């Protein structure tokens, strides 16, 4: 079966977007409210209830824009915001944004509700009511052309560049050909590859944005004296950031690059997009880039990814709030050792057991099954990680002019 024949039933949102999950999102607006928010999520005993939040009392534009993008995400159908009562981030504003999208929303201050127990009880009642309402969301036919898929790697080893990312790249070529949207990130793992990436830019603006983003990331790495490569990568046989970079960039496939997105930006049209997660210059040097894999996944989801791929060599177990994560490994030993956590064994291609094209189609089928509601391994295990840091990024979409 080719990609054009793969269909599934999604959720029709009032703003016209189509989601593949029908979630109630709980957001806390300061660390002081996180326990109550997480208790509401845990005690609701509903796998379609996710909790995310921002820990700072002082607000941060980047973090708030990221949370707003999650509210607008098509996998989210309803919103509950939990604040303490004295923080800068305003629960009421977030609830209003959800309502403008045609999504049910509620908010509360724990101080006003009278503490932990009362807030948790009220929150559970709200979440249960939203869950009932979400059953009425109309279903709608979706195809691969309706999907946004994001990809990043984590715990890379030599197989990532030989199999895991190579299969991802081949799938991305097919998705883009079908009219879908593919997003890849980790410009800090493109060190040494400026010419290679720049010439794939579809027009002068895309090329200029790629160059700007690359140079910003390289300057960042130079100034912190840290490149995106770790002891485990070296032990696994990768000798330099350039070697790891090429293995990482292969996941973008061969399509032209339409342009550069920033975190919480929406791709304006179909095709392949590069996501820039590096902080922009700021006097406080807000934020570090790629502090962990969930930060990258959250960034991909903030751009509307219905599903993300995490390509690993050495293994990883994480999932994510808001969008399912499909974990792919090119390392058969890792797959065997961590089969309960790994969704896709791409290492077969290295043993000559199947062709790259067959494997990319098999991955497409897994995407279609996941989009139709089947749980990924991390979803079934209850993983719902998230990471929303302080950072500074200006609002221009990867644009330097």
């Amino acid at each position, binding site marked *: 079966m080719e990609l054009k024949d793969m269909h599934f039933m999604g959720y029709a949102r009032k703003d016209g977007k189509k989601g593949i999950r029908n979630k109630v999102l709980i957001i806390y607006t300061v660390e002081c409210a996180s326990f109550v928010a997480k208790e509401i999520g845990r005690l609701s005993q509903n796998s379609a209830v996710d909790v995310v939040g921002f820990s700072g009392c002082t607000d941060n534009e980047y973090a708030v824009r990221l949370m707003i993008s999650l509210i607008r995400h098509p996998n989210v159908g309803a919103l509950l915001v939990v604040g303490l009562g004295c923080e800068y981030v305003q629960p009421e504003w977030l609830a209003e944004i959800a309502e403008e999208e045609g999504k049910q929303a509620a908010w509360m201050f724990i101080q006003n509700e009278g503490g932990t127990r009362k807030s948790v009880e009220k929150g559970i009642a709200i979440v249960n009511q939203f869950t009932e309402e979400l059953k009425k969301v109309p279903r709608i036919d979706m195809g691969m052309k309706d999907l946004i898929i994001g990809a990043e790697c984590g715990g890379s080893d030599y197989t990532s560049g030989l199999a895991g990312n190579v299969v991802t790249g081949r799938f991305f070529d097919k998705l883009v050909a079908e009219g879908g949207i593919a997003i890849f990130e980790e410009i800090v793992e493109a060190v040494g590859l400026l010419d290679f990436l720049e010439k794939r830019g579809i027009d002068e603006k895309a090329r200029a944005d790629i160059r700007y983003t690359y140079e910003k990331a390289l300057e960042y790495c130079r100034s912190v004296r*840290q490149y995106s490569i770790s002891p485990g990568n070296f032990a696994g*046989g990768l000798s330099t950031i*350039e070697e790891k970079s090429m293995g990482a960039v292969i996941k973008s496939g061969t399509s032209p690059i339409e342009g550069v997105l920033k975190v919480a930006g929406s791709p304006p049209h179909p095709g392949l997009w590069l996501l820039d997660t590096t902080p922009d210059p700021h006097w406080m040097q807000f934020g570090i880039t790629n502090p962990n894999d969930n930060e990258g996944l959250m960034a991909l989801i903030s751009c509307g990814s219905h599903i993300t791929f995490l390509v690993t*060599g050495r293994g990883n177990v994480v999932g994510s709030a808001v969008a399912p994560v499909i974990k792919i490994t090119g390392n058969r030993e890792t797959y065997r050792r961590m089969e309960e956590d790994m969704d896709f064994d791409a290492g077969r291609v290295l043993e000559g057991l199947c062709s790259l094209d067959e494997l990319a189609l098999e991955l497409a089928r897994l995407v279609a099954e996941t989009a139709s509601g089947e749980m990924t391994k991390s979803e079934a295990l209850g993983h719902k990680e998230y990471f929303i840091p302080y950072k500074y990024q200006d609002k221009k979409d990867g644009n330097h002019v």
Partner: protein
Amino acid sequence: MKEKQRAFQIDDTDNVATALAHLAAGSLELLGDAKKRQLNAVEEIAAGHKIALRDIEAGEDIVKYGVSIGKATRRIGEGEWVHLHCMRSAYDERSIHLDVITGAPKDTKYE
């Protein structure tokens, strides 16, 4: 069962290949985009690590995926293991301080 001695060459301009399993010294089969199909490992090479496809001079580019992934810091003979002990990044100064086996940093002392 002893695994087959195999390494994978990605691009035909590469001067290194990647070991697909732990390699003992001795002959091995080259897969992928390789012109020659046989190579002789002169030392043990761990899975995922690189083997030189030909003699590489000090200062020469190490080429994998058809692009430079760093420079040789000394002469490397055909069939030798290629890693942190004989090559370095053109960008990342920290990586030359890493332990060649574990990759752990040795440039910071904690007391």
